[in-house]
């Protein structure tokens, strides 16, 4: 019980700091890839603290509540994961939380924001199979859904689940809103949908959205780490290295590809999921 409380507290404090640093690093690396110097490492922190100080304008009163619900559910997901609970539960709460964001986007009736919200739903439709397959893979390889038991396995789970890993990292591009799958909203300014689902969010609401994104990224990268970690303590170091490599890979894809249309995203993601995770699933069922 003590251990669970401790890991939740560490997650609550460390996740936004790490998420902010990762985001800052992302912006610097992206700038270097484009031949620019880029902003300081703490730029995301400066942005959020500025947004928190600005005048609050909300188009619809319920929007603030919906963003707060999104904020709490996404943090709750991370707490459950790092406290070692059921991974299936984590992903279901994550998806429930994401629907609050969709509501927050569509409640304003702004055309850009509503369009962004419906694209967000399409994105959910695209990555959800990969995410559910990943949960299934963890169960088949580790014999349990509990994160606390999965990290105690004899061998790293990626030995059994390479196909699932590919499918998960592929769907991570959608989840992290990286190009080519940044349909609903983009980190890069000035897009064809203005700012997509976040168009009508300003000041405090937008700051909450950014902080939520930091928590969410840490959770999503934590799941990448779960593929690597086994009962050997040195595997934590390997997991951190793999997580950083995956994050760099996402930045590289973000900077080298153009946005695709929704139908292409859906088809590509489902094909990758079915082929890599599906084949892996069949093999796993035969050998186990």
């Amino acid at each position, binding site marked *: 019980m003590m251990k669970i409380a401790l890991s939740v507290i560490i997650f609550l404090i460390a996740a936004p700091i790490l998420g902010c640093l990762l985001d800052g690093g992302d912006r610097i690396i992206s700038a270097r890839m484009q031949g*620019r110097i880029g*902003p300081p490492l703490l*730029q995301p922190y400066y*942005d959020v603290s*500025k947004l928190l100080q600005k005048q609050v304008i909300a188009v619809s009163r319920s929007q603030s509540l919906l963003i707060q619900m999104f904020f709490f559910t996404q943090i709750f997901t991370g707490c459950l994961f790092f406290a070692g609970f059921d991974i299936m539960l984590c992903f279901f709460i994550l998806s429930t939380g994401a629907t609050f964001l969709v509501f927050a986007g569509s409640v304003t009736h702004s055309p850009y924001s509503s369009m962004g919200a419906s694209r967000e739903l399409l994105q959910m439709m695209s990555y959800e199979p990969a995410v559910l397959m990943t949960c299934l893979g963890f169960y088949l390889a580790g014999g349990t859904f509990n994160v606390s038991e999965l990290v105690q396995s004899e061998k790293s789970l990626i030995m059994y689940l390479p196909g699932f890993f590919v499918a998960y990292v592929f769907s991570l591009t959608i989840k992290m809103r990286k190009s080519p799958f940044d349909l609903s909203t983009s980190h890069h300014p*000035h897009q064809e949908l203005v700012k997509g689902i976040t*168009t009508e969010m300003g000041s405090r609401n937008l700051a909450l959205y950014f902080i939520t994104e930091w928590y969410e990224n840490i959770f999503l990268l934590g799941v990448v780490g779960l593929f690597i970690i086994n009962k050997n303590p040195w595997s934590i170091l390997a997991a951190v290295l793999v997580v950083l490599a995956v994050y760099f890979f996402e930045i590289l894809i973000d900077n080298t590809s153009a946005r695709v249309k929704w139908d292409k995203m859906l088809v590509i993601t489902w094909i990758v999921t079915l082929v890599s995770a599906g084949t892996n699933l069949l093999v796993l069922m035969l050998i186990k």
Partner: protein
Amino acid sequence: MAKVKRSPWLLHYDGSSCNGCDIEVLACLTPVYDAERFGIQNTGDPMQADILLITGGINAQNQAVVKQLYDQMPRPKVVVAVGVCACTGGVFKDTYNILGGADTTVPVDIYVPGCAARPQAIIDGIVKAVDLFQQHMDNHEEFLKNPDEYMKKNHPEVDFKKGE
């Protein structure tokens, strides 16, 4: 709290510009000048913007748009007029459809002259706007701490409690 001036987000609006100034504004974001070094981002969204950057003069058709964009931006906000057309109307000043510079419609804080305004001048104008942005925020905080004293010191002629 960190200083707000570290993160100025721009909203760039093209009035009836010939696009010369717009190209120079975009040039500020390219690798040569890299305005993102100062945390400057070109958002397309008034709800998220701090600095309104206007190029080109105001005409009868876009006056309402500029006004609305200005109103949609949360306080504190700063307006920068880039190029001579946005400052005064420029060579189009006496044309039948041009009302004049950006200050005919919204209160302009910083004027960046030039035809087209050079990127160096634009960045200089933005840096000045950023300082003003910080000053607005500081004034607001000072006002919140002690409204009576602040109003007596800075606006002795106004009795703000009566709503004048």
